[in-house]
């Protein structure tokens, strides 16, 4: 598997990964290893900028518009249709802010934390199949990999919280890590119940396993999406995911009414932008994981070329859900948060795992 698998194109026929496709399109694959490396880098650049564009739309514009709609306001509407050009204005505004570094900050860690938060959030998208051939890499350990790299952000949050030399930041960083580790286990264990259905960790195969029809109903095929096969696991995963990305009702790490802004209290200018970016990337990464393992990935009606459209629709649906909860659900306290995680979700996720295993074992 070591050498042979690596160079062979994807086994299940029509899916070709993005680096190879770009290599063919640009003719770079004719230039040996250097050309392939460049094509791979270009593919990574495309994925990185696609996700950056999504967060760019989500952060300065969509978030405001959605919250405004929930609270019966209009929000940004001056620049361009629906105020969409506020994205450009905000990008310039935020990048040209003065950077104020608190006087007791631990310098290398304080500067590195935003890079860790933003960079690590991007890493997970490498293995997410986005449809229409937009899929950077497809290692056999895909799902384990994506859980592993999405955990790196906790490190960045602790670095940010500790190095800011601020009481609010310190508490915020500690809360962030306590929350992430409390909900990491239910998240991974619930993800594991999907692995039991699919029998693989490879993302493309998990998506392929969901393509078969579950039941046919008046000539209409209901796909075998794991959200429909096991709705209990889907709900558990959604809840654990919201806690993992620190969104309402689990936004205790940055609870503005208690600890100002948590770990990002002392961050300004581009550093603030990077941490904010990392958080949005994490919401989308969570959406991407949910879409891939529960909602059939890029599957949807119409030709396969529409895959990326369906994928984006699905992750924006998850994003919309986070914003809905933000407007509708009150925040839990830190002690409630720990109890929900360790006493509720953890036990439920193990019950789900065992039940899934037993049902799959008996039915097979």
């Amino acid at each position, binding site marked *: 598997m070591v050498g042979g698998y690596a160079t062979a194109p994807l086994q299940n026929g029509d899916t070709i990964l993005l680096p190879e496709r770009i290599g063919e399109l640009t003719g770079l694959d004719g230039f040996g290893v250097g050309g392939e490396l460049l094509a791979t880098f270009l593919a*990574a650049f495309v994925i990185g900028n696609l996700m950056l564009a999504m967060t760019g739309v989500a952060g300065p514009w969509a978030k405001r518009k959605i919250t405004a709609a929930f609270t019966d306001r209009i929000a940004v509407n001056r620049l361009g249709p629906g105020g969409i050009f506020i994205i450009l204005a905000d990008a310039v505004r935020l990048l040209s802010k003065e950077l104020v570094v608190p006087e007791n900050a631990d310098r290398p860690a304080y500067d590195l934390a935003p890079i860790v938060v933003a*960079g690590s959030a991007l890493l997970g998208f490498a293995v997410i199949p986005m449809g229409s051939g937009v899929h*950077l890499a497809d290692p056999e350990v895909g799902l384990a990999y994506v859980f592993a790299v999405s955990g790196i952000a906790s490190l960045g949050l602790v670095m940010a919280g500790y190095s800011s030399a601020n009481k609010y930041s310190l508490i915020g960083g500690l809360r962030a890590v306590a929350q992430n580790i409390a909900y990491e286990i239910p998240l991974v264990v619930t993800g594991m119940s999907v692995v039991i259905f699919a029998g693989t960790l490879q993302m493309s195969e998990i998506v392929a396993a969901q393509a078969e029809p579950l039941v046919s109903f008046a000539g209409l095929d209901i796909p075998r999406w794991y959200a429909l096969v096991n709705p209990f696991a889907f709900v558990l995963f959604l809840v654990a995911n919201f806690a993992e990305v620190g969104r309402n009702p689990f936004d205790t790490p940055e609870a503005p009414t208690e600890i100002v802004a948590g770990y990002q209290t002392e961050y300004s200018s581009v550093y603030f932008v*990077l941490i904010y970016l990392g958080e949005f990337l994490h919401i989308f990464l969570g959406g991407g994981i949910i879409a891939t393992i529960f909602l059939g990935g890029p599957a949807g009606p119409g030709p396969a070329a529409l895959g990326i459209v369906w994928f984006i629709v699905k992750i924006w649906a998850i994003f919309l859900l986070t914003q809905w909860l933000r407007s509708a659900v009150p925040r839990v306290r830190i002690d409630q948060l720990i109890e929900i995680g360790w006493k509720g979700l*953890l036990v439920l996720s193990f019950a789900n795992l065992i039940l899934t295993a037993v049902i799959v074992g008996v039915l097979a």
Partner: protein
Amino acid sequence: MNDWIAIGALALVGLLIPLGMMAVSYLLRPTVPETSKRATYESGEIPTGGTRVRFNIQYYTVALLFLVFDIETVLLFPWAVVYLDAVESDSVSLLEILGPMLLFVAILLVGLAWAWRNGAVQWAQTPRQAAADSDRQ
């Protein structure tokens, strides 16, 4: 191309994007040093005391508990991957596939029950907070 080279390329992009934004910001932003601008933010008050404050022991106990369960999930993953194949092949009985995992999870759940009973997942309160809580009830 190897999958891991592609992931490495994305890691490089993930490093270059923040660095690029920092570089652009460095060129654009003003620097106006003023006294007390860099003071630690404490809601506009003059900062008091150090910032390495004492915090709840609970953060430590849940982190210890996490280590145990995180290793457990790592050990469960290989089992979950081969489970479907093992069930579908008739060479092993269901009890043989399911039994050891059930025992393994059961041992850890006993551990969780023990930690639960000993208050490791119950938010630790100072005596004063506990007294205030019992007053309220």
